[in-house]
């Protein structure tokens, strides 16, 4: 089941933005729309399943016809624009009402992309499943459950009765299987550092719609799995010292992720 409205957070102004969901044709990759955010446009890209896969922000620019200009005509409505010749390197947007021109200017050359502008939907805010779960357990506890699903996918994971159905639903969406989720009271103590990375991703998705929230958590899990697989492959190809070199690199970039991966691959550097 997929909802009609996608909820995303503008990376520039942090505004929560609700837009009707679109579906990209399967061969073309991404279907883009633009949302007017006053001094900038939020560009949102949907994949063939209608899930937001991309967003970007373009500042809005209005040119006046003075000085050296390059004249262009909008391929959609024909309106003329005069773009400052002195801009040698920039990307910006020009508002044409129901559509927007995204302009990439490099040297004297430019490329234009036209994107349809859609209106935001103003509906009653609805909490996503993850936010519902977080009413009963902390982010850290939920991060622990996710990490356990990665580390020990075959062992039982205990969750309280009142969130059992929701946790099972979300984890089934993320991992494809959640038959190891059981009702009970967990007394396990949690080492927080390896959880920080997942915890930060959980807080990032709290305000999004279910589809986008689950998709970002899935991406995070796949990132962890791919890093784990790469470290194992490097060890096989080049030996333990080289694998450790990459692990140390990870330690410098993200301590929590390093601890988590090291916990899974169990290499003694």
């Amino acid at each position, binding site marked *: 089941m997929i909802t009609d409205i996608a909820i995303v957070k503008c990376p520039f102004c942090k505004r929560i933005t609700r837009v009707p969901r679109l579906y990209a044709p*399967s*061969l073309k*990759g*991404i279907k883009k729309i633009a949302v007017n955010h006053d001094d900038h446009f939020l560009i949102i890209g949907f994949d063939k399943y209608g899930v937001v*896969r*991309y967003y*970007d922000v373009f500042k809005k620019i209005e040119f006046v016809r003075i000085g050296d200009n390059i004249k262009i005509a909008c391929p959609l409505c024909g309106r003329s624009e005069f773009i400052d010749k002195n801009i040698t*390197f920039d*990307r910006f947007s020009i508002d044409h009402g129901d559509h927007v021109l*995204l302009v*990439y200017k*490099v*040297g*004297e*050359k*430019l*490329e*234009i*992309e036209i994107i349809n502008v859609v209106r935001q939907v103003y509906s009653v805010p609805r909490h996503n499943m993850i936010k519902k779960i977080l009413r009963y357990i902390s982010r850290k506890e939920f991060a622990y459950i996710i990490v356990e699903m990665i580390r020990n996918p075959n062992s039982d994971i205990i969750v309280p009765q009142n969130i059992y159905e929701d946790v099972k639903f979300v984890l089934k969406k993320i991992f494809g299987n959640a038959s190891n989720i059981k009702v009970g009271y967990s007394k396990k103590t949690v080492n927080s550092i390896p959880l920080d990375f997942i915890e930060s991703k959980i807080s990032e998705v709290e305000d999004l719609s279910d589809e986008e929230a689950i998709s*970002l958590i899935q*991406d*995070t899990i*796949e*990132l*962890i*799995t*791919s*890093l784990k*697989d*790469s470290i194992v*492959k*490097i060890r096989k*190809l080049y030996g333990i010292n080289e694998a450790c*070199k*990459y692990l140390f*690199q*990870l330690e*410098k*970039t*993200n301590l929590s*992720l390093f601890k988590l991966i090291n916990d899974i691959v169990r290499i003694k550097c």
Partner: protein
Amino acid sequence: MPMKRVKVAFAGDAGVGKSSIIMKYLGFKDISQIKKTRGVSIENAKYSGIELIIWDFSGQEHFRDIIVPFLNGSNIVVLVFDLSEAKTLYNLVTKWSNYIVELLGPDIPTVIVGNKRDIKNLSDDFINENLKELKAKLNVVSYIETSALSSDGIDSLFENLFEIAQTINI
């Protein structure tokens, strides 16, 4: 004689077709089945005493800070853009080339690949202007247009990579 191992990094925005190019070369027929890369994926290709260890880097912005440091130690860089998306070429000039210079220096042999030639809609003028910028920043040794869908240019790209690998001292 031991195999000469050369680390080749494929980088560029998400969705430009990096994995499709690599998998097509490795004999994968149906590229529509290829999943998007999250993080990194490592493949290898051998030819005449040379083993290319191909690192396919995810283009996702969410995780770029985590992924980019893994470029370290690369011997050849392949920067891929989509011939139908101006943004992906613009980002090679404004973002990816900076990561390369910062981590590997400006002298690392770099191949620029314009993929999706079958749906190319960027003007040659715009491409050339961007290539000029890239050449000013990086050691661009070649520019190749490919189509992972029709296999156009894929073999030439890898022949080129093996040739460059031969000239590298490791």
